[in-house]
């Protein structure tokens, strides 16, 4: 589906051409599907309420859960792209060795933060599994979402380090 020579997305400053790895495309396809689902849920709800006087009762919480899934499916992509907002001030004035050292430092900090996110999300997921946490109207279990988020942060932490290793 994607062209291998496609230009890098330039919406986000400082981004490098992204990895065309299988995992990247797989997550991207999932993200696309989730965006489409978000659109579909709203449309079914809005159109349904006028044409059939039949609103879609689960639209609110389905939107919530699709949104969370989208954010966490996309996070490793943004991270692999180097798409997080950074302040780019006077760094280019430093000698290349210092720049590289700072780059590693920034990568390490990011990976640690993402790693802590992942760890806390595992704890949340485990608690939700234990307490049987579910959504209010559709009674969908919440724990899988927390585990998805945890996996996403863990993969992102690895992606940060791999990126630093390449550049």
């Amino acid at each position, binding site marked *: 589906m994607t062209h291998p020579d496609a230009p890098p997305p330039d919406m986000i400053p400082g981004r490098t051409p992204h990895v065309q790895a299988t995992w990247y495309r797989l997550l991207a396809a999932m993200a696309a599907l989730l965006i489409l689902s978000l659109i579909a849920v709203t449309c079914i709800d809005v159109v349904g*309420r006028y044409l059939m*006087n039949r*609103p879609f*009762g689960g639209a*609110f*919480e389905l939107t919530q859960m699709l949104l969370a899934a989208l954010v966490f499916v996309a996070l490793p992509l943004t991270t692999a792209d180097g798409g997080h907002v950074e302040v780019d001030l006077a760094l280019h004035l430093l000698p290349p060795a210092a720049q590289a050292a700072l780059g590693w430092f920034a990568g390490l900090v990011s990976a640690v933060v993402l790693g802590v996110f992942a760890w806390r999300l595992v704890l949340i997921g485990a608690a*939700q599994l234990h*307490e*049987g*946490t*579910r*959504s*209010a*109207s559709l*009674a969908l279990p919440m724990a899988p979402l927390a585990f998805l988020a945890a996996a996403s942060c863990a993969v992102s932490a690895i992606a940060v380090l791999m990126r630093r290793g390449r550049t």
Partner: protein
Amino acid sequence: EELILSSWLPPRHPIVVNAIEPWAEEVAEVTEGRVTVRIMARPLGTPPAHFDMARDGVADITYGLHSFTEDDRFERAKLGQFSFLGDDAVTNSQAYWDIYTGQLDASAEHAGTRLLGLFMHGPGLLHNNQRKIETPADMAGMKIRVPGGYAGDLVAALGAAPLFMSSPEVYERLSRGVIDGVAFTYEAMTAFNLTDHIKYSMTVPGGIYNTTWFLVMNEGKWEGLSEADRAAIDAISGPAFAERVGKAWNDADIAAKEEVGDKVEFHEASPEVVTALREAASALEAQWAEGLGEYDGLAALAEFRKRTGVGIE
């Protein structure tokens, strides 16, 4: 000792102004300044996170609704979420405190925290902008926003379509005709600006629904206080807090009723509607009681209604 209280309601909400804040000030008074309570300028997490926040020590004291999280943690708390429970928030809250902490062992469901308060608001009504509900059939197909599982099952049993959404979304959806009605208190009519979008409000003796709330403190922090301070705080919490917060709800309801005036037609549910509601409600109550194991939910409900004087048979 300074205790941190995380508050998620708007700072000018009657419960914050007339219950939480005065209680916090009184804590300092009764402990002669040894314990003070600082209310955060903004909450330290989302509303549903507030129980866990007190348990985990993110804040020292939090309050919230038991129905925030849909899980198996606060099953017995649902005692106070049924219909026909009582029209006075003070009596409701005190009965709820006594019975839930007594025979239903509320502390066990609030493990990791010290229970400082349990409370309920005034009676829930059924507001709508379609028609006056005179028979159960008038509710058929009506799209009603409900606060949670029980109220949803109840209106569904009468043929209405229950919808879930956050309270601030109600205004958007009611004014756009996405929903036809909402199960809410008197106070919520004015708090969420709904008066112009409601035509009929049906009262049910003892309320069509209620919500139950907790006020809890981190257990470790509680243990760390001196015995004298704990006793002093206990004296203004529990039933005393139930009275204070119940009065705050009652006053808010009275103020709202005055503000609404005759812009909305209030009417009592007809005997026919009440009968239908009772039938649906008792089935749901029995189902709830079944899942409580060793605890006798139906006895607790009967006791509750005896306390509040709502006759039901």
